[in-house]
Structures are given as C-alpha cells and as structure tokens.
C-alpha cells in the first residue's frame, strides 16, 4: 500500500493525473457553483426563442427562450448527481457481492459468481430500457438507482478476485484466530485493502453512468421533469435544433458529456498507474 505522502509525490509528477484532476474539478465547480451564482430558475424565460449567444444570455436561449447557460449548469449538476448515485449503488452492491463471494469461497462463491456472470453477459442497456419503460415516471434518484443496479457486476467480479487473493493473507488468519466473525473480517481486514481499487471503480462507474443516462434520455427514457445533459440533447434533437443550426443548444451538452467522460476515464487510468504500475488494465473495464 502507498503511504499518503508517496501517493501525493507520484501524483503530482504525473501530468495525466493533473490534467484529469483539473478537468474533473472544473466541471464539478461549474455544476455545483454555477446554479448558486446565477440565482435564477433554469426554466425561467429570459429572451426570445432560439436567440443566439450574445452579451446577455452568453450561451443564447433554447426553443422556449430559456437561458442555455443556466440549463447547462443544472443539467451538468443533475447528470453528475445521477452518475454519483449510480456509481455509489454499483460500488456498494459490487463490494457486497464481491467480498462475500471472494471471502467465503466454495458454494457461495460459485452461486454468486454464476449470477454475476449471467448478468454481465446480458447487455445492461436492454435491462435499462425495459426497466425505464416499466417505470412511467423516473426521478433523478430513480434513474441513478436503476443505472446502479444494472452496472455492479463488473465491480463485483473484480472485487471477488481481489478478495480471494487476500483471503490467504496472514492478517486475515490472525483475525480469524482471534474470533472475528466473517462480516467483521470483511469490514475491518478486507475492505481497507481494496479501498484504492474502489475509488477507481467509482470513477469508472460514474463516467459510464453519466453516459448511460444521456443514452437513455436520447432514446426517450430519461428522467422526467429533470434537466440533465442527456435531456438537453434530447430536446435539441426533438426541436430539430441541429438541422436549424442552433448549435448553442447541442454543442455545449455534447462537449460537457465528452469532458466528463474523458476527464474521469483519464483520472481512472492515471490512478491505476500510480497505485499499481504493473497492473495492466485494472480488471475494471466497464464497456
């Protein structure tokens, strides 16, 4: 395990890490501080229909005369929120299934990994489409949860592999001898050892979830009554903004989706390098 100072020293030297961290922080700042600073409702009408970018609405207005920049801020914030809920749900479920399977081995492992492998094989987008169709209205939280429950198997598989390699370590034997329960050992002696991996898995899941939300929205299955990057794009396509050349309604959300995804994936791969220079790929690939 890396000590904190050594981690920081390696991290600062890695230009990839720095670039990705700056990208992610910029997007986060825009999404969190933006809505606080503008101080008006994203749905407020501020100008004419499809007004082009000017001094007053700096990114122009949409089909209903709403301020595009404000919409973008709220959209980014909600997309990240959905992504974070999905990422947390996926990592939690993945850790639960993965540690139990990896720690107990035998029949438990066979059964849990069997289910995991079946779920990995079935394309997640299909399950998401079916679930979203069934749930007539979807809040941002629901969206995050359904994306989360369809994306945990990759994390579970990687966590199980790491846990079963930890299982035979001495500190686990000692914990067992001193009478700790299986659950206690998992919480105290297994999870701390895979925390760095979990952080990386979360960044990956977050990136994938943000893109998944956008894809679902573009299919017409996005969150209801919520502005997200995907919803902004869907509106744009719905109102034929691309064919009318109203670029300020679709280029910014496309750009933000790309930056979020690129920044997080770069962060993931640079963390991978820092924590484990020998590790190839990290076993957490999600697409």
């Amino acid at each position, binding site marked *: 395990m890396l000590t904190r100072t050594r981690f920081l020293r390696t991290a600062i030297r890695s230009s990839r890490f720095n670039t990705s961290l700056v990208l992610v922080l910029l997007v986060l700042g825009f999404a969190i501080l933006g809505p606080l600073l503008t101080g008006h409702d994203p749905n407020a009408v501020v100008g004419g229909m499809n007004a082009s970018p000017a001094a007053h609405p700096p990114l122009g207005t949409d089909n209903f005369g709403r301020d595009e920049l404000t919409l973008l801020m709220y959209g980014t914030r909600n997309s990240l929120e959905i992504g974070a809920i999905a990422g947390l749900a996926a990592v939690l479920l993945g850790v639960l299934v993965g540690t139990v399977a990896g720690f107990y081995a035998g029949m438990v492992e066979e059964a849990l990994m069997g289910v995991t492998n*079946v779920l990995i094989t079935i394309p997640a987008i299909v399950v998401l489409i079916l679930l979203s169709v069934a749930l007539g209205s979807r809040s941002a939280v629901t969206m995050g949860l359904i994306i989360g429950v369809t994306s945990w198997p990759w994390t579970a598989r990687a966590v199980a592999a790491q846990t079963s390699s930890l299982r035979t370590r001495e500190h686990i034997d000692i914990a067992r001898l001193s009478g700790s329960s299986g659950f206690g050992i998992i919480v105290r002696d297994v999870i701390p050892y895979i925390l760095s991996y979990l952080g990386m898995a979360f960044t990956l899941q977050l990136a994938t979830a943000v893109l998944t939300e956008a*894809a679902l929205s573009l299919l017409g299955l996005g969150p209801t009554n919520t502005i997200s990057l995907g919803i902004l794009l869907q509106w744009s396509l719905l109102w034929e903004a691309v064919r009318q050349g109203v670029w300020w309604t679709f280029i910014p959300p496309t750009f933000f989706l790309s930056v979020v995804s690129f920044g997080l994936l770069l962060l993931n791969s640079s963390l991978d390098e820092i924590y484990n220079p020998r590790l*190839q790929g990290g076993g957490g690939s999600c697409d």
Partner: protein
Amino acid sequence: MSPTFRRYILTKLAWYLVALLAAVTLNFFLPRLVPGNPVDALMARFLQGGAGASASKTYQAFITQFHLDRPLWGQFLAYLVNIFRGDLGQSFSLFPARVTTLIGQAVPWTIALQLPAILLGWILGNLLGALAAYKRGAFDRNLFVTALALSSIPYYALAIVLLYVLAVAIPVFPSAGGYSFGTFPQLSWSFFLDALHHYLLPFLSLLVIAIGGQAVGMRSMAIYELGSDYVNYATSLGVSDRRVLGYVFRNAMLPQITGLALSLGTLVGGALITEIVFSYPGVGTLLFNAINANDYPLIQGVTLIIIVAVLLANFLVDLAYGAIDPRIRAARSGER
C-alpha cells in the same frame, strides 16, 4: 474434435442457454413487475374508449396475442413458445404489422452501417496502435491522446458534431434519413448513389470512434509485449526487428480478436443513438419510435434481438478462444 474440446463447447452452450433464458425471462417480467405497465395501460385505454366495433376487435387481438386471459405464468409460457416459433407478435403503433417484419426491415440498414465500421475500424485501429507502440515519440503521444479522447467520448457525440458541421453548416451531406425523401429502396444505380450519400456521414462517425477504441487497446498490448522477456531475449540473440515484430503482433492480437468479436456483438445495439441522430432507418430509430409510441411488443422485440446478438458474439468469442488457445481450453473445461 477432441472429447475435451467437445465438452468445452457443450458446457459453453449450456451456459449461454441459461443466460438466454435469464434474459428472456427479464424481457418478459421486468415491464410487467410494475403496476400500470404499458399493456395494462393500453387495455385500460381500450376499455375506457367504449367498445366500438374496430376497437373491440383490436382489443380481442391483444387479448389473444398476449394471452391476457391466462395467469402471468401462462402468459410467460405462451411467450416462450411464440419466441421459439419465431413469432414476436404484432406492433401496437403500426398494427397489424408483425414485429418480425418491422425488425427485418430495419436490421439490414443497421448492419450495413455497423459491420463495415466495426471491421474497418478494427483493422485500421490495430495497425495504428501497433505502429504507435513501435515508433513511440511524438507520433505515439499525439495518436494516443487522440485515440484515448475518441474512445472515451460518447459515440454519438461525434455523430452530432459531424451532422452539424458537414450537413448543416457546410451542407455537403444530407441531414436525415437513409435515402432521399420521395424515393423508394430499389435496385438502381441512382438509388445506390443516393443511399451512399446518406450513408457516409453516420458511417464515418462510427468508423472514427471504432478506430480510436481499437488503437488504444492494441497500443497498450503491443507496448506490454515489446517489453517482455521473449522480446529482449530474441533481440539479444540478434533476431531481426521484422521477425520480432511479427511475434509481438501475433501475441498482441489475441486479446484484440476478443475485442473484435465483442464489438460484433454490438452490431445491432451499438449504434442506436447514431441512427436516431441521423434519422437513419435502422433498429435505433425503430426502437426510438416504439418507445415514443409505447409500442410494447416492438420494444420487446428489439431488446430480444439485441440480447441474441450479444450472446451469440460472446459464444463465438469463447469458441474461438477455445480453438486458438489450448491452455484456456484445458483450464476452463471444468469451469461454470
């Protein structure tokens, strides 16, 4: 075929049949778990609308189609039997068109778009990735950053940008559809040229993204191989660069073959949004319209096709791996 290989194939086959059954079960039950599901809602609409002669006929058709007079498990059994007979029912929104007919019309467009993009993207991506790993330096750095960016942005982002730049801002290409409005698919030279004109932009957007993804994978595999012991050993023995590169390429290709087969699994479901962006007459647009019209049988039909394509590709990967790599065949024959 050796007995171990046959057993390997049979276990794999059994495994994928289980996965298929699980997927079909999800396909049937997921939408019906929630009260007020599309079928219920549709029925309620029919019931409220009173029983006009045609409405009640359609209603009867739905009852027979979904066996709504039976309990849920009976409906499920009927669904399984119908799938087995290749019958996916009739569309709600385009009633009485059969779901299989609608999908059959859309799939060729999607495959025509995806198959060349995947294959060409795979070839060009691998060549570029291997070249970058071999040359290193500025070429590698530029290519790697570009490829990494292309492989991490959503695949439809490029489609949206290309559509705007090359069909709207500089209108070189048509902005929508698979062929010009007012023409019909036929075997003629002018229709072919027209279709090609509509084809290039969505194709290009998929191709560039595919190249990016493959190049990143090949580059890291090739760099890993170039630093391995057998390369050092061969080089120190004085084996020519060409020959060493040949070994490296072959070894690095193994995972790339999996990559190819897995992307072939996305043949049907991998370009849904691209088709929506370009209003291309493929499976994506079909699904989009079905979702907007709450056309449940059609949605279910499309998801089933996507599942089958993915499972088939995965199965082929396992078969190919079993045939190529005897170690995997031996190690895995007892598993699962």
